[in-house]
């Protein structure tokens, strides 16, 4: 029965994640942990499996790869995977309460990000700008214009990537929801390019944590498989719906839900 519920949860979170432009892990982990009463580490491990699945499918979408800045993504991935490995080391030492705090903080941040970016418009950088080693140019299908951007504040990008890697392993989320707003707001990367690049790279980020959980026998294989299959199906539905709706009201609602989830985990941590 848990397999069925997990598959349905995976489908729901995959749909929501695709609709809202964030990973489904932020919804799946609380569902597995709070509703199905799976231990937090096992819930995070299953979520990382779904993050890999989502990343692989999302990044294979036609046209999306042209938005990906592979050079930038891979340079940042150095720090994200190092962060992920740091998370693996910390996971040994963190108590359940510390994990709850980490997850609560992550949920609060995601909630704030969802509220902040809901009405933001991507500014179109000057296509004549010199892009440098880590910038890029791409054709924006919405404006039918050539977009060029140059990376700024690399230390910020490195630091955020490292933190995102730690959080990814500990909380079972992709980390993109932390990286994408930072790259857009502070580092000069247009939102579409940041999101596409992140979607490709979160799979690599999640692998670090997933490998560790797998080696420790903390991935409940039937539930992970069910969740992954559910997410794959649900995300396709989410993309189809998302192409037709703006989902602005849904983003606010989900931001509220995540804020409540954050409060629940803080309460559990300090209870």
């Amino acid at each position, binding site marked *: 029965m848990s*397999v069925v519920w997990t598959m349905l949860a995976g489908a729901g979170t995959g749909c929501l994640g695709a609709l809202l432009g964030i990973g489904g892990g932020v919804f799946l982990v609380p569902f597995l942990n709070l509703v199905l009463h799976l231990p937090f580490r096992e819930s995070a491990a299953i979520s990382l*499996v779904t993050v*890999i*699945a989502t*990343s*692989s*499918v999302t*990044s*294979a979408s*036609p046209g999306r*790869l*042209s938005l990906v800045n*592979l*050079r930038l993504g*891979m*340079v940042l*991935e*150095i720090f994200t*995977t*190092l962060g*992920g*490995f740091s998370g*693996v080391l910390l996971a040994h030492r963190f108590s359940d309460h510390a994990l709850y705090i980490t997850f609560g903080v992550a949920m609060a941040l995601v909630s704030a990000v969802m509220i902040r970016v809901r009405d933001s418009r991507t500014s179109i950088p000057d296509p004549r700008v010199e892009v440098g*080693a880590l910038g*890029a140019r791409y054709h924006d299908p919405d404006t039918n214009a050539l977009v060029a951007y140059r990376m700024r504040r690399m230390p910020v990008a490195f630091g955020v990537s490292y933190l995102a890697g730690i959080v990814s392993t500990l909380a079972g989320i992709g980390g993109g929801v932390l990286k994408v707003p930072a790259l857009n707001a502070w580092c000069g990367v247009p939102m579409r390019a940041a999101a596409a690049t992140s979607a*490709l790279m979160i*799979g*690599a980020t*999640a*692998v*670090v944590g*997933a*490998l*560790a959980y*797998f*080696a*420790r026998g903390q*991935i409940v*294989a*039937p539930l*992970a*498989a*069910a969740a*992954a*299959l559910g997410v*794959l199906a649900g995300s396709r539905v989410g993309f189809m719906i998302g192409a037709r709706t703006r989902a602005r009201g849904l983003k606010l609602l989900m931001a509220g839900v995540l804020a409540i989830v954050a409060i629940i985990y803080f309460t559990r941590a300090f209870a």
Partner: protein
Amino acid sequence: MKDLDLTRLEAHIRRVLLVGVAATGLTFVTGLALWLAGSPRSTIVLDVGLVLLMAIPVTRVIASCVDAVRRRDWLLTWSTLIVLTVMAGTLVYELTRKITEP
């Protein structure tokens, strides 16, 4: 990156991702069916599925590395090699921990 190079790279990456996802999905469906039927083989099949899934991003990084070497993009080459080293290092760390700890 030139347009032709990007298109070729896109095609490589897309093929890797799609083949991997299809193989993983098939393995998971098989494994779940065996698990629901109570077969002891389900564990191995599901674990194979998990390994296949985790191999997708790793293979993608490897493919990017090979392509970067071919195009003499040394920044991308070294970046991918470092990422692969961290991934391998994580696996080695966990396996070593498993062996040495009681």
